[in-house]
């Protein structure tokens, strides 16, 4: 990583602290996580911190809903916003490649997202550990760390997608529209379509094929990683439970999540290099 990428990343991060982005995201994630893990078991007639598996399932659903939305809002204007401020054209005259600028800004946003997720979900985790007596602490630590790490990766996926949107949009308002569509598509529409496919074919879609189709949605990958270890929770884990676990190894899932960061990221750099300013 060049020195210039770090300079850009540091500025972006500082800007994020100033804008209260980091504080805001941390608080939102912490509050929702605490509330969800407390009321998560309400469906089964209990409130309070219950079993670890229930908590992780509830938290995952929350993360799938919130993290992509936050990441997209955070980063959708990263390039198109600088263009409207007049700073983009200026930076392009500096001794700085377009790719360095984009990667630097991405790094800053990624660091903000990681820090807020760690603080927000981490504080909720401490509370859960403190209040739930019957939970095995070591088990909690492992499952919860995985939850936080995958949440961060999920955030990065959507930051990368936001950059792609920002780079191809000519105006901020258009970028925000496209970002919302992306959120809606991955969080709601995709699973509905898959369900429709399942119903329409009378379940004839093979388990294997179905598992691979899930890899096309980063939020489903996130769900698969976090719920994979809990047999008991499969009922509650939606479509992800239908997939053949043996077919999709954890390594494949983690790699797929990384691919979802790298590919949109590269596409963003490529399109940015072609963009007429």
């Amino acid at each position: 990583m060049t020195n210039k990428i770090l300079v850009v990343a540091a500025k972006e991060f500082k800007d994020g602290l100033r804008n209260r982005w980091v504080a805001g995201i941390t608080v939102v994630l912490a509050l929702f996580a605490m509330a969800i893990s407390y009321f998560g078991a309400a469906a089964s007639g209990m409130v309070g911190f219950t079993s670890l598996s229930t908590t992780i399932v509830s938290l995952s659903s929350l993360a799938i809903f919130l993290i992509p939305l936050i990441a997209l809002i955070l980063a959708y204007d990263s390039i198109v916003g600088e263009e409207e401020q007049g700073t983009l054209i200026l930076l392009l005259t500096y001794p700085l490649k377009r790719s360095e600028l984009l990667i630097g800004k991405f790094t800053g946003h990624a660091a903000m997202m990681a820090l807020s997720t760690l603080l927000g979900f981490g504080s909720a985790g401490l509370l859960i550990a403190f209040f739930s007596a019957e939970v095995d602490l070591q088990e909690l630590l492992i499952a919860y760390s995985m939850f936080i790490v995958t949440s961060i990766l999920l955030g990065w996926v959507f930051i990368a997608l936001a950059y792609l949107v920002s780079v191809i949009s000519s105006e901020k308002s258009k970028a925000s529209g496209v970002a919302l569509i992306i959120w809606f598509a991955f969080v709601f529409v995709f699973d509905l379509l898959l369900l429709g496919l399942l119903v329409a074919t009378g379940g004839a879609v093979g388990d294997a094929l179905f598992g691979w189709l899930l890899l096309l949605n980063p939020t489903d990958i996130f769900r698969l990683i976090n719920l994979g270890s809990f047999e008991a929770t499969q009922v509650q884990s939606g479509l992800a439970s239908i997939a053949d676990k043996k077919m999709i190894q954890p390594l494949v899932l983690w790699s797929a999540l990384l691919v979802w960061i790298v590919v949109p990221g590269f596409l963003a750099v490529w399109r940015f290099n072609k963009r007429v300013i």
Partner: protein
Amino acid sequence: MKAKAAIHFDHVVMRFGKLRAVNGISMDIEPGQVVGLLGHNGAGKTTSIKMILGILKPTTGTVRVFGHDPAADRNMGGLREQLGYLPENLSFYPQLTGRETLQYFARLKGASGQEQKQLLEEVGLMHAADRRVKTYSKGMRQRLGLAQALLNQPKLLILDEPTVGLDPVATRDLYSKIEALKQQGTTVILCSHVLSGIEEYIDRALILSAGKILAQGSINELRQKARLPMTISVRGQIDNQDWLTAKGVTTRKINGSHYELSAAASHKLDLLRALANEKNVEDIEISMPSLESIYTYYNTIDQPTADRSPAVEVNHD
């Protein structure tokens, strides 16, 4: 192509869809010159600048900056560290302070902390350096923009509408800074609509219209070529007015003791001698055609001007 040209354009065309924003410009700007790039809104000034900066790649034609192709050779042989640019419509990062903003740009350009401080001082922002830019007035933002453009003692300085929002004192400071940089050999391109006041600072004016160069040359050359009349205000009595009429001078009597003469600039010395010999003339004041009137002249002529002096090239379709 002249090897020593700071900026060289050869039949440059820049098209946006059907629109030819720049339509066949050829020009050379020598190192160390201060050039005024003038023209109506949409004439192609900013587009030309973007091609010099390598932000836009010309549709056809060649652009060279100190011998480098700015669009292909991004580094421009290390010139980027010493390339100062002030874009139009620059509003910066609202949440950062002035000092932090300048620091960010300085780090990217590799300029020292010492220089940052000095520039903040120079543009008169020291007192507001630790306030967030969102609280800055328009002129203060413009000053901050100038400070970043002046980082690293630029070898090439391009200012797009630099005086917008600046108060008269800041404007004068800017021009003396440009003068100082010129002494050090900096090439300066100045895009401006505010024509009054820049005459004395620019070595050469380039007048663009609809993507073409309408006229270029020093103010004097343009003046001669335009053959715009100079104006002489005379206080007192002119006894021998027949002589003036014979010389083709138009005389207008403002009141009993005040005349305004309008005459070809080439008659300047003749006229002055004659007027100085007039017993009852008390005072004479000459005003040469301003850049503004020259500019207006070139923007309104549309007939071929083949008979004009060869010192200046005039391009017409």
